[in-house]
C-alpha cells in the first residue's frame, strides 16, 4: 500500500505557522518579484470574485480591500519546513519518495500493528503538531489511486484529510466521484478526448477497453488505466532523479536598458544554475539565454528573443558557462528597449564522468578544484560570497523585489520569530 502525503496550501501554511494572527484568514504568496499569486490558502481560494491568476498590479487593490494578506515568496523558509516534513515522514516508512517540495509518496506496505486509517491519522497529526503545517493523507494500492485518495481527503469534508482506499468497493466509489480532471497525469488533451466519447468520470475511463486506451492514449494512458484498476505500474523512486534541464529566469526589480546590468543579472543566474549542475554532478551541452520586455506595459515597445549556444566540451564550470552566456546575450540584446527579464536554461545534461572532449580540447582542461572551493565558500559564508566578477556589485539595481518577504525564521539567527510583550 502507498500513502500520498500532501501539505495543505504549503507556502501559505508555512507563513501562517509563525503568524497566528492570520490563522483562519486569507493568505496568498507571490511569485518572484511579486508579479503574481502562486499560492493561496483555503480562505483566499474561497474569494472567487478575485481573479487570483491575474498579474498582481491588476488585483492588488482588490486584495487589500478584501483584507487578504500577501507575502513575497520565502523559499528559504519553505525549503527548510519541507525538509522537516520529509524527515518526519522517514520515521513512518523506510521508503519515502519526495515528489515535490510539499508532497511525498511513502510505502506503507506491511503496516500491521494498526489499521491503515489509524496510521494515516497518526501521520497527519504528527506532522501538524511537530511542524505546524497541516497535511492530507491518502492511502491506496497504487500511486495514482493514492493521489486520488489524497484529493478526496481534502475535497470531501467528512474524510477530514484522511482517506484510505483498501477495498474494491471504496475504489469504485472513489472512481465514480472523480472527474477525469481529478486523475493525476491525465492531461487536458486526453480529458477533452474522453469527453468527446462520453467519458466524464474516472470510473467510466476504467471501463473502456484496454485496446482502445492503448491505441488512443499510448502507454501513458494504459498505465493510468491499470493503476486506477488497482494494478501498480509506477515504480517507487526513493532516489531523486537527475534533472534533464536546469533553468532560471526572474524579472528585474526595475526595467533595465543597458547591456552591462543585464549581463550582471545573467552572470548571476548562471552561477546559480551552475551550482545546481555541480551538485548533481552533471555537465551542460547547450546554453540558452533569453530576454524579454514587459508584455503588460502598453507604453513600451515590445521585444523578446532567445539564443542557444552549443558548448564545445560540456561543462559545469561557472566561468566557461558565463562566457558563453555573455556571447549569447550580446547576440540577442538590442538597444532601445526596457527589458523586464533575462533567463538562462542549461540543457543536454550529461553525467560529468561521461564528458567527451574533442580534437582540440580535453574535458580535463578545467580544474574542478576551483569550483569545489567556490561551492564550499558559498555554502559556508552564504550565497554568492565569491563568484565571477561579471556579476558585479550593483546587484541592488536589478535584484528582485521581495518587499513583503517574511523572516527566515528557521535558518537565520538574526531573523527569529520575535515575541513582543508589554
Amino acid at each position, binding site marked *: 500500500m502507498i500513502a500520498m502525503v500532501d501539505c495543505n496550501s504549503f507556502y501559505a501554511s508555512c507563513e501562517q505557522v509563525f503568524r497566528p494572527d492570520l490563522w483562519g484568514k486569507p493568505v496568498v504568496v507571490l511569485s518572484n518579484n511579486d508579479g503574481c499569486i502562486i499560492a493561496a490558502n483555503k480562505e483566499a481560494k474561497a474569494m472567487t470574485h478575485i481573479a487570483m491568476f491575474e498579474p498582481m498590479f491588476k488585483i492588488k487593490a482588490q486584495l487589500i480591500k478584501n483584507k487578504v494578506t500577501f507575502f513575497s515568496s520565502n523559499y528559504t523558509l519553505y525549503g527548510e519546513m519541507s525538509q522537516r516534513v520529509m524527515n518526519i515522514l522517514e520515521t513512518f516508512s523506510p521508503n519515502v519518495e519526495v515528489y515535490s517540495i510539499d508532497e511525498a509518496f511513502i510505502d506503507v506496505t506491511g503496516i500491521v500493528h494498526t489499521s491503515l486509517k489509524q496510521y494515516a491519522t497518526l501521520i497527519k497529526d504528527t506532522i501538524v503538531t511537530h511542524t505546524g503545517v497541516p497535511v492530507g493523507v491518502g492511502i491506496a494500492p497504487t500511486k495514482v489511486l493514492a493521489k486520488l485518495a489524497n484529493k478526496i481527503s481534502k475535497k470531501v469534508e467528512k474524510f477530514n484529510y484522511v482517506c484510505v482506499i483498501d477495498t474494491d468497493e471504496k475504489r469504485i466509489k472513489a472512481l465514480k466521484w472523480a472527474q477525469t480532471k481529478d486523475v493525476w497525469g491525465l492531461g487536458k488533451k486526453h480529458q477533452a478526448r474522453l469527453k468527446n466519447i462520453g467519458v466524464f468520470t474516472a470510473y467510466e475511463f476504467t471501463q473502456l477497453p484496454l485496446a482502445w486506451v492503448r491505441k488512443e492514449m499510448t502507454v501513458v494512458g494504459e498505465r493510468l488505466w491499470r493503476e486506477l484498476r488497482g494494478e501498480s505500474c509506477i515504480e517507487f523512486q526513493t532516489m531523486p532523479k537527475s534533472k534533464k534541464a536546469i533553468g532560471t529566469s526572474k524579472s528585474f526589480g526595475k526595467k533595465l536598458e543597458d547591456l552591462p546590468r543585464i549581463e550582471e543579472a545573467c552572470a548571476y543566474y548562471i552561477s546559480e544554475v551552475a551550482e545546481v549542475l555541480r551538485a548533481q554532478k552533471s555537465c551542460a551541452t547547450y546554453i540558452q539565454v533569453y530576454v524579454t520586455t514587459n508584455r503588460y506595459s502598453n507604453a513600451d515597445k515590445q521585444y523578446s528573443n532567445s539564443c542557444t549556444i552549443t558548448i564545445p566540451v560540456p561543462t559545469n564550470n561557472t566561468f566557461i558557462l558565463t562566457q558563453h552566456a555573455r556571447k549569447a546575450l550580446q547576440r540577442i540584446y538590442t538597444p532601445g528597449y526596457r527589458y523586464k527579464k533575462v533567463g538562462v536554461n542549461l540543457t543536454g545534461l550529461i553525467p560529468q564522468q561521461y564528458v567527451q572532449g574533442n580534437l582540440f580540447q580535453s574535458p580535463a582542461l578545467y580544474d574542478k578544484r576551483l569550483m569545489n572551493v567556490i561551492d564550499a565558500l558559498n555554502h559556508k559564508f552564504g550565497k554568492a560570497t565569491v563568484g565571477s566578477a561579471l556579476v558585479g556589485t550593483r546587484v541592488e539595481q536589478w535584484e528582485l523585489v521581495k518587499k513583503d518577504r517574511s523572516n527566515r525564521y528557521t535558518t537565520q539567527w538574526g531573523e*527569529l520569530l520575535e515575541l513582543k510583550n508589554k
Partner: protein
Amino acid sequence: MEYLETGKIKNQAPNHKASVSTQTGFPSPATHYLEPSIDLNKELIRHKDATFYVRVSGDGWADFSMLHKDVLIIDKALTPKAGNLVLIVQQGAFKVIRFPATRSSASFTVWGTITYIIHYTL
C-alpha cells in the same frame, strides 16, 4: 508514538582518532579515553524537526525568567504537562503561560513547549 530521535542515522563525528605523536611515535596516554566534545544540538534538542527558536522582546515575562533578547527553545513534539512553560496562541496572539493542571480546551491553542531559555549575560 514516542521516539527519541528522528531522521537518518548519522555517523559519529570522527573524534576518536588515536593520536600518535609525530615526534616520538608514542600514542597519547588519553587515546582510550577520548570522547566527542559536547554538542548542544544533541543535548538541548530532542526532536530536531519539531524544534523552533524564538526571541523574546521586552521584559513583560520576567516572572517566567524570560528577559528582553532571550532566546527560547521550543519543542512542538512534546505534550505539555501541568506546570510546564508553554507558548500558546490566544485570540491570534502569542502568550507564555504555565500549563494548567485542568484545562478548558477551547480557550487556547498550544504552539509548543518551552524547553530552555537562552539568556545572554554579557
